[in-house]
């Protein structure tokens, strides 16, 4: 193959000075040598375009079906309800690109929510509660990471065990009662608006922005792709795979801690049933966002578009007073369709 694709006299275009910030993007520019190559290159971009198209279509449907859809108020409702799951999905995207999976995110949200709303913690006020939620999230993530990286237990099993354990612990601490938050400044996280936009939306924006920079512009992000793409090669290239794996789960846990603060403030109480099934929602968003479930390739922007697609569907159903069963069916079909498209793009005919 190499002979045929070699540029004449082998001196190729000097791309070093060119503006290709992301080397992967180079795949799409070249008229591919094989069907597989060009298809693969296109998938990343086309996929985001496809998601944007789906989102636009949903917005049209929403606007047609309900007069209340295309209002400033409703757009903010969609963004606000995307905020919590969006922050969780940022962490989940890192974990999945790094070759893992985190099934415990919903349970971590519950545990962090309950722990930061105990009477004792509320005595410390706003700062103490936020600190507590973040630390609980990060520590649970740390435990996940240590068991996976150093205990060599498969991520799926480790985090499913953590899902049960953390949820149980949350129930035990709260005695299955909801714990009303009496610290007003804490609750105001959800009610405050800056320039007419809820603070929760700013938090989501900040998480996505920081996450994007971390994933695409830093050595940490680069290593995440490498470890997810080929763990053995990463190890033999001198990367500290185990330490990096631990950090990925800490990051995911930390995102859950932030999400717990947001969700607790919204509901003005901590409860052990918060975050139920968030693991599935976040994984589904990551997958329809074009990230390979096996790791090594993925996009944070895609994940967030995935979150927005799901929240917009829910919003349209709510506005039109439709039952949730049809909504579930629609979600399921979207996930399936996305994965089928993804598979078509990713099985190159190996010439």
């Amino acid at each position, binding site marked *: 193959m190499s*002979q045929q694709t070699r540029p004449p006299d082998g001196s*190729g275009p000097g791309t070093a000075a060119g503006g290709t910030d992301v080397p992967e993007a180079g795949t799409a520019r070249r008229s*591919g040598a094989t*069907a597989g190559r*060009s298809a693969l290159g296109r998938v990343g971009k086309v996929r985001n375009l496809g998601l944007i198209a789906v989102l636009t279509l949903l917005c049209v449907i929403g606007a047609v079906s309900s007069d209340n859809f295309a209002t400033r108020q409703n757009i903010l409702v969609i963004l606000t309800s995307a905020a919590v799951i969006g922050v969780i999905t940022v962490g989940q995207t890192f974990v999945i690109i790094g070759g893992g999976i985190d099934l415990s995110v919903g349970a971590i949200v519950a545990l962090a929510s309950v722990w930061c709303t105990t009477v004792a913690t509320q005595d410390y006020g706003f700062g103490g509660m936020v600190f507590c939620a973040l630390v609980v999230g990060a520590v649970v993530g740390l435990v996940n990471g240590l068991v996976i990286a150093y205990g060599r237990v498969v991520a799926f099993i480790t985090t499913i065990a953590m899902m049960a354990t953390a949820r149980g612990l949350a129930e035990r601490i709260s005695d299955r009662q909801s714990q009303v938050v009496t610290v007003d400044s804490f609750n105001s996280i959800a009610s405050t608006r800056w320039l007419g936009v809820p603070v929760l939306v700013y938090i989501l924006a900040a998480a996505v922005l920081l996450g994007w920079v971390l994933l695409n512009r830093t050595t940490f992000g680069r290593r995440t792709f490498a470890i997810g793409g080929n763990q053995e090669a990463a190890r033999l290239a*001198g990367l500290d795979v185990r330490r990096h794996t631990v950090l990925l789960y800490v990051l995911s846990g930390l995102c859950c801690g932030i999400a717990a603060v947001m969700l607790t403030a919204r509901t003005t109480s901590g409860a052990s049933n918060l975050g139920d099934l968030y693991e599935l929602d976040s994984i589904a968003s990551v997958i329809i966002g074009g990230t390979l479930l096996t790791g090594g390739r993925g996009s944070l922007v895609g994940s967030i578009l995935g979150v927005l697609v799901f929240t917009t569907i829910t919003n349209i159903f709510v506005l039109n007073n439709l039952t949730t069963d049809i909504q579930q069916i629609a979600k399921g079909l979207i996930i399936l369709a996305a994965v089928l498209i993804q598979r078509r793009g990713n099985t190159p005919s190996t010439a």
Partner: protein
Amino acid sequence: MSAPLLEMKGVVKEFPGVRALDGVDLDVAAGEVHCLLGQNGAGKSTLIKVLAGAHQPDAGHIAWEGEAVTLPTPTAAMRHGIATIYQELDLADGLTVAENIYLGHEQARLGFTQRSRMHSAARELLKRLGHPEIPVSREVGDLSAAGKQIVSMARALSHRARLIIMDEPSAVLAHDEVDNLFRVIADLTADGVAVVYISHRLEEIRRIGDRVTVLKDGRTVARGLPARTTPTSDLVALMTGRTVEYVFPPRPERAGPDERPVLLEVAGLSRPGEFQDVSFSVRAGEIVGLAGLVGSGRSEVLETVYGARRPAAGQVRVDGSPLRPGSVTAAVRAGLGLAPEERKSQALFMLSSIARNVSMSSLRRFSRAGFVDTRAELAATGEAVRSLDLRPPDPTRPVRTLSGGNQQKAVVARWLLSDCRLLLLDEPTRGVDVGARAELYTLIRRLADSGVGVLLVSSEVPEVLGLADRVLVLREGRVVREADAPDLDESQVLDLVMEGSAET
């Protein structure tokens, strides 16, 4: 002569942007070993896939026993009696030997598999292949590469294959296992089965081949040459347009005692069951070769030096200070670099570009406070890629589109960029075609001349002897001889390597 078993004429296969096959002719007679020769990218793999029914040709004719056929699916090919044994053996590791042999055509009645019938039939096939000792109820994942290959062949026979295509079967085998493979092939052809044999090793083609067809750039450039008598220079010339085979760069002249600094000192290194009490040293600018059979511990020694395995005893010193055992990160920081045996699974990130592959071990150089400067990265990787004459010299290309030799260069470029001072090479020319090999040899020597120490493992004795300055011969985990390479010859080394194992 009656109609050949298989005849292909003017077969063309195009992929978007590439004409992988551009008029291939091939005829194979029953009972012969027909060798297919060509550089990587000459179209061998595509040709195999056309024969296996996995690709459809865009033009050309295929005749089976004189009658025109089409092979629209792998099942159709199988029905005619064409079986393919791919390089990456397509066996299910979790299933037993018998289950693998009958995968897809289980002996069943009313949907229930008939275990005992399948087992005895499988046993029969293994016996025919000269391997009655392979237990049919063993999981395939537990078998050696050689064992798996036998199972693949048994599967082919279970389909009553009359033409078996073997894609570089010897690449995964040790010396004695190759002998056994050849015996099996001889038995098969004696029964009238035809074998299409693909290999980079000319000496193998001489030993078992009847005729040779040479492909170059998707075309047949020579058809049905006698395998034993066609001069090597002719074959190489047909494949490459060049007239040389193994060319090793000259060793630098050296007078007086060697006073170059010692980079690596290995003392009393042991891992039970793998190797014992291995000691040696590598100086700056020196190429030290480790020769030995598969299982002699050579790759294990390399990986232990590199920290990928933890030694039970012994010490590794770099520049005189001990290296933290069992830590690759520490080894890389100390200036070591490994080009592992399995490039694709152990070294490369196949989803990424050449640049990202090359920069992986020196990201620190291109980053400030954790942020990667992609412009500097592209400039530096581009320079490394050009200095190694990697083709195409465009670092934004996906690494998976490179040929074997160029992928190896990408791995070497990674270590070049990380200012590696001791390069560990495990089978650097495996799966690399003849022309690109000479280039790699020159490159390795050039690195050594610039002061890099090289530790080389290869199962090809001429390669170790031709390239290394000093050679250690390993047998059953022990160093049995250490000498300057010019003082050894191939038969001596082979004797040393096989002595002992021949007795038991």
